[in-house]
């Protein structure tokens, strides 16, 4: 226990929360895979218990793993964070909400299309295609902030209230510098969210009875 306390107190608040976020996210994904493999949907109580157990395991200080003979230097979740960094607040919200609400969030098709379109334009430019870098907008552009607010209002008008809440949380997290990043883009999108949108569109397109949701009233 003292090892656990020492590990937690050694972390700064921001690092602790970032690791906790990643641990919960990894646990949710692992639980989804187990439900898929066992073809069984766990009850909310069972989900919560398993989530706590998995999150705790991922968060376990490396010293515990060392006792078991595993030569780890960090909690398991820190290895995942080393690979993927911090996920956007929008991704976290959508992932966690769909897990805890136990309902498929029927996000607007336009949202997924928009996300894929933004990713196709944004990432090549941000990675050096030309002298134009839209990622720089995210550090402190009034025009970019107004554009995000405008998109959020359009989404609200389209009655996707869950998505509006997600954008609001992302904006608030950026304003409070919740993550290490100071860039608004990093709170709104990440490559995994864009990849999910692309795969989701592909699945919807090829499925015999695609879900054509335009609202997420859930």
């Amino acid at each position, binding site marked *: 226990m003292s090892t656990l306390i020492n590990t937690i107190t*050694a972390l*700064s608040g921001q*690092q602790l929360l970032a*690791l906790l976020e990643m641990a919960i996210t990894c646990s949710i994904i692992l639980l989804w895979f187990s439900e898929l493999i066992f073809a069984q949907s766990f009850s909310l109580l069972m989900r919560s218990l398993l989530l706590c157990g998995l999150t705790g395991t991922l968060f376990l200080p490396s010293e515990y793993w060392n006792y078991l003979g595993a030569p780890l*230097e*960090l909690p398991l979740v*820190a*290895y995942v*964070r*080393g*690979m*993927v*960094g911090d996920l956007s607040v929008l991704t976290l919200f959508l992932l966690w909400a769909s897990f805890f609400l136990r309902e498929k969030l029927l996000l607007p098709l336009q949202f997924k299309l928009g996300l894929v379109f933004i990713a196709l334009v*944004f*990432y090549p430019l*941000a*990675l*050096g*295609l030309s*002298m*134009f*870098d839209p*990622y*720089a907008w*995210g*550090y*402190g552009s*009034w025009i970019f*902030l107004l554009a995000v*607010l405008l998109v*959020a*209002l359009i989404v*609200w008008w389209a*009655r996707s*209230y*869950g998505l*509006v*809440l997600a*954008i*609001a*949380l*992302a*904006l*608030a997290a*950026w*304003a*409070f*510098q919740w*993550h*290490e*990043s*100071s*860039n*608004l*883009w*990093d709170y709104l*999108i*990440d*490559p995994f969210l864009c990849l999910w949108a692309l795969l989701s569109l592909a699945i919807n397109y090829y499925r015999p009875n695609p879900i054509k949701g335009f609202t997420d*009233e859930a």
Partner: protein
Amino acid sequence: MKRIFSLTALLLAAAYAIFYLNGLPVWSEFRPPLFDVGAAVREKTPSNVAANLMWNAFDPQQTGAWVASSMAASVHAASLIPLSDGNLRAFWFAGSREGAADVVILSSMLNTKTGHWSEPTVVMDRVTAEKGLSRYIAKLGNPVPAWDTDGRLRLFFVTVSVGGWAGSSISTIVSNDEGINWERPNRLITSPFLNLSSLVKSSAIRFADGRLGLPSYHELLGKFGEFLRLDAHRVIDKRRMSSGRTSLQPLVFIESTEQATAFFRQARSIGPAQIPISMTHSAGYWWEQASDLLLPNPNSAIAGVQLPDGTRLLVLNDLAVGRHRLVLLMATPQETRYSSWRLISVLEDDSKLPEAERREFSYPFLTVTSNGDAHLVYTWDRKKIRHLQLPAEWLKNRRSDLSPS
């Protein structure tokens, strides 16, 4: 209900975001270099023939010392910073090989009065970095020191979690006692794609508001320079300095409060092996690519510094291929506006040796102390870090040789 709740949440978040954005510092001018351009003119006429003869015969290698030798199988990427007491502190990385898990960032201090380098101490190792950053780190590299806004010594360094150097990110630590003890590291977030591929090699510059501008570079898909504006360990803006797959490791020379020139290590697969150039006329806010500087560059790092009288020095491998020759070049502002770079000294040269026996002299880093002496460190055959002191008097003597009579 959901309609009202979501709109209220959005408006509240928008208010916080506007408040945050309003509080961000605006872009600042460069802190202008303190030139004494008249000094160069005044010193044109030799005042002491004996002294001139002495400096004519001076070889910078006479001042040479090993900063680090036999410390590790591989050492690389040394950098320097003058301390408040006039001494110098050097940083470099060392390990069994470049990119190995046992690579650590070391530091040593030069007592400029005695010329003695202290025993190296470990500033950062991989495990300390990963525990501090709360994420897996596979390797460390490229330490670059700078004086921060609050007068503390800050060290930027590169960390990699996955893959090669193209997967790098920049982290930073800060010291309250000029490099003896260091605080916990922080990560700079500079890229939207898993924060991959940001590296640092050259000195930071200072804005008029005291904040640092850090020239960095990207080498994942493209190879280009980026200029980071920092507030302590946070990136508050980023501007692109070049694009494509042509240029790495920007080295910035400030000309005025608005103007600066960046020299790059060229990284072209096709095209001239010369130094790419970018210029800014807006204190680093916008950069435009200019014609190459017609100096050869074999895709190797260059170092530069501006002396108090405005004279610029460059140290580089003046070859199209290889890193077996290292030279010192000089350009003055008075006659040619830095357009003409003249060879001042050949610092290392293995050109006459068979190719298999040639050693590598690379990754130079220059700094200048308050008395006008320039100090150079560079990788000597990956085995040692070499330090050369270039005395102010000798540099003045060399500059007067360049000036038309």
